[in-house]
């Protein structure tokens, strides 16, 4: 132990805030440097390949349709990336690493912004895996089911496929932020799709209410075969406001004001 070792070789810029990109890279690394994170990614890959197997062996005459199966990859994969998004937030509280994180970045909203950016990167990466896995499924499916491979893909099919994945992930992120507790967030995240249809059975209304309040119902109206109507986009927007913006705003405010420790 000597003075030489306690002194840094050179003093680096200390008066500049760590750039958001740098914080996002750290958050991305945190999302995947634990066993939980790696397992989720492994399971995501397995699920993606599972859907592909479904395409190949049970796809029937649609087995060769790239656009259809890219769309179907969204929801199951979205569930796993959603859990990763939930854990990105909640593990800071569960393991109390928030103490160190916010000591290094006291502007807490910057940390949340970095986490959101990391989650978006993961979502895009997941979509890329889906796209690759669907390509494999389309090539094999066409052969196995003896149907022509249809690689046609329009811009809106890409957008709709991505939106299904993205909304799922963002709901997870927002619920994680709202509860700051993995168990609560995951339970609510999975209970909602199960319970929501039951609740809507009780509602009698001339207008179908579900797609306006349940993001699941709104996403279910989307199909790989047709461009969503204005009403459908509006439903995705309103349900996203309810399930993403609202819990995220409440959660972010709570994080901003809460005691860390």
């Amino acid at each position, binding site marked *: *132990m000597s*003075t030489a*070792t*306690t*002194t*840094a*070789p050179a*003093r*680096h*810029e*200390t*008066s*500049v*805030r*760590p750039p958001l990109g*740098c*914080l996002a*890279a*750290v958050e991305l*690394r*945190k999302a995947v*440097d*634990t*066993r*939980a994170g790696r397992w989720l990614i492994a399971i995501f890959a397995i699920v993606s390949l599972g859907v592909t197997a479904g395409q190949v062996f049970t796809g029937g005459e649609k087995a060769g349709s790239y656009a259809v199966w890219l769309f179907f990859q969204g929801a199951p994969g979205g569930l796993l990336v959603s859990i990763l998004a939930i854990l990105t937030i909640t*593990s800071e509280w569960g*393991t*109390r*690493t*928030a*103490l*160190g*994180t*916010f*000591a*290094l*970045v*006291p*502007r807490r909203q910057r940390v949340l912004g970095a986490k959101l950016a990391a989650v978006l990167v993961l979502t895009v990466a997941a979509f890329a895996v889906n796209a690759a896995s669907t390509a494999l499924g389309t090539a094999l499916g066409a052969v196995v089911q003896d149907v022509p491979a249809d690689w046609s893909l329009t811009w809106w099919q890409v957008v709709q496929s991505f939106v299904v994945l993205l909304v799922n992930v963002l709901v997870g992120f927002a619920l994680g932020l709202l509860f700051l507790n993995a168990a609560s967030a995951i339970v609510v995240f999975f209970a909602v799709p199960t319970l929501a249809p039951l609740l809507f059975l009780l509602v009698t209304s001339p207008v179908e209410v579900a797609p306006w309040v349940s993001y699941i119902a709104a996403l279910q109206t989307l199909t790989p075969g047709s461009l969503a109507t204005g009403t459908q986009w509006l439903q995705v927007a309103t349900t996203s406001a309810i399930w993403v913006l609202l819990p995220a705003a409440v959660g972010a405010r709570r994080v901003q*004001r809460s*005691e*860390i*420790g």
Partner: protein
Amino acid sequence: MISVEHLTKRFGTQPSVDDASFTCAPGTITGFLGPNGAGKTTTMRVLCGLSRATSGIATVDGRAYVDIPNPGRVVGVLLDAGATHPGRRGREVLTLAAKTMGVPTTRVDDVLALVKLTGRPEHLRTRQCSLGMRQRLGLATALLGDPKVLVLDEPANGLDPEGIFWMRGLLRDFADRGGPVLLSSHLLSEVEAVADQLVVIGHGRIAAAGRKDELLASTTGGLAVTSLDDTALSRALQADDVSVASTRDGLVVDAAAEVVGRAALAAGVVLTGLAPSAGHGLEELFFTMTAGSELGSDQASAPEARPSMEESR
């Protein structure tokens, strides 16, 4: 430079920290002393922007913590060595911190060597680490950004005697190069050997603050006296209107040595010991000023538990 001015933090109606003020000057080590629940941790969390003060100001290096652009490069913070992800390895914890504060990852090797975790320990997941190792890892994180100031909450917890000795050297070295150090402890002995300045907190209030030697002098309980006949000496001193207290080891007399000597001569008692009772002064101060705080939620009954606390209020 750390400055805490009239800091109050209430949880509900219960003040956890009540109008606390103190400063830590460059080049000094300040021991922040108090029993569990006295408000040390709350004060430090407010200081580090993790908790909002109800009123009052806490600044580091002249600024509120949240206004420091890249705090890891200015303030080394260790608030809870247990607050690490159990699944991350020591080296990974440091690497994440290094990337956050933008220091080269070679610094990770530097601080690992500094806290003696190089080799196998750096590759252990933190759940496999002993508390002592986690404390070293926490210190390494605090030192990573080559900060100007250190804020350490109970850093000696879980360290073995050798580790405590090592940490003292490290902190002394840091302070000697001009950095103020604030370190808390509920054990007087941990802090006494290394601190230049003491801040004693109890029930959220600063009970005493100042240079360690001055505090020691002001709290000296007179002279520790032993003799072949304490009873006779005590009677002789009391006859001279000198206040005398009996202890297990002998007498504590509130008077000059000459007075005691003359009384002994007059009474014909042989003195066997005559020394300032400074050694116990700080400990007594610590106990009297902070007594009762450990009772936590049972605070209503605290005054009865330790009568001496009434005096300190």
